[in-house]
């Protein structure tokens, strides 16, 4: 499991829930770059990106006791909590794009950092889920989930009716959910 701490077999979130004083910094060490990368997709280089990462970690530290290793990996939990916090924030903040990178915010495509590679390997595992979707569905879902465009922005960009965009995004997510259930043997 991606979340297990080497040598202990226990996830960092479980250690936080148990009151391990070093576990919260370990969570930042392991997932900080990942959460930051997600925040950059939503908020660009605006200061809101940093605030959203801070909010995400506060939420993760607070909700660590809800993590159940038998129901999914630690990475999935981190991604889900961080994303939900960011989606909440997106609803309240203007979306920034084409921003100038912040000082110290480096593109990290050649990094050999083990934590990042672990996370990337686990995420590669979920890519087959996207094969459930047609090319057009993937495109729309990517613009929504990954690029962070609003549904009306997507409709304008693709010259499609807003209702069609909403319907396709909803259906694509439902199919991803179904594939996730199958992968977990819950279907």
């Amino acid at each position, binding site marked *: 499991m991606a979340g297990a701490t080497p040598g202990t077999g226990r996830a960092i979130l479980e250690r936080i829930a148990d009151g391990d004083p070093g576990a919260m910094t370990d969570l930042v060490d392991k997932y900080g770059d990942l959460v930051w990368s997600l925040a950059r997709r939503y908020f660009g280089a605006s200061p809101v990106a940093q605030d959203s990462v801070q909010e995400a970690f506060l939420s993760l530290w607070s909700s660590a006791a809800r993590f159940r290793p038998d129901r999914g990996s630690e990475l999935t939990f981190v991604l889900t909590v961080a994303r939900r916090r960011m989606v909440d924030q*997106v609803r309240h903040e203007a979306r920034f794009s084409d921003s100038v990178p912040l000082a110290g915010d480096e593109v990290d495509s050649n990094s050999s950092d083990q934590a990042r590679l672990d996370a990337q390997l686990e995420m590669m595992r979920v*890519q087959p889920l996207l094969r459930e979707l047609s090319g057009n569905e993937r495109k729309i879902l990517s613009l929504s989930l990954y690029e962070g465009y609003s549904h009306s922005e997507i409709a304008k960009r693709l010259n499609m009716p807003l209702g069609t965009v909403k319907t396709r995004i909803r259906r694509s997510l439902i199919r991803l959910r179904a594939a996730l259930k199958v992968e977990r043997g819950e279907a």
Partner: protein
Amino acid sequence: MTTADRILELLAAEAAGERLEDAEYGELRELLAAMPAGERIRERDLMHEAAALGQAAFLAEDREAWRTMPDGLRERLMRMARARALDSAPRDSAPRRANWPARWGWAAATAMVLAWIVTTVLLPRPQVVPPTVSVQAAPDLVSLPWRSEVSGYEQVRGEMTWSDALQAGEMRFAGLPPNDPELQQYQLWIVDPDRHEHPVDGGVFDALADGDIVIPVNAKLNVDQPVAFAVTLEQRGGVVVSQGPLLLVAAEGPRPGQAL
């Protein structure tokens, strides 16, 4: 479209970050309320997980998107994490410190210094209610069982204890369905019609895991003689005025001289 399909459609819209119309949001709340609490949370979580994993899959394909967190942000998070870890340590040992006064006697001066430290430095902040033992020992303590006729909550057991003198109390629950703290939280309301026209906000709280919990009451206003306590499920952080159904109620008969 079946009810199950409609729930999935609305959950998908929510998980995608779509701003639901008021009517759709109300419909989603009604449909979810009809489901058992555990299933409701599981369905919602699963849809959000699907969205998060979908996003992660796109991220995994995009090498250019990987970023290293700015040093300043990393340092700030590390400071917060360390402070939070330190902050949780005193709470864990609070009962031991609360017993310190019982150990004095060998040197009055030392005890007085310790007492000063305990009362001015170590005891919980003012908004935190006194320790459990104080509330339970209050001479005017009222204890009322929780009752519910709402589907999914009939099995909840426990009691509400309250002391007018201390303006403090505790909620004890067994079997309270877990909430999803990312979206909704339980909220306590204190009914004191002689003093307040509307129920007083008693604070929000979460029920995690098995639902066997003890929650101190954090009343936002002074209450004189509460006649009832009620629990609702509200948006995260709570609301000022509740529109939701009363999931649990703890009420007593009329007090002497008081009309309900």
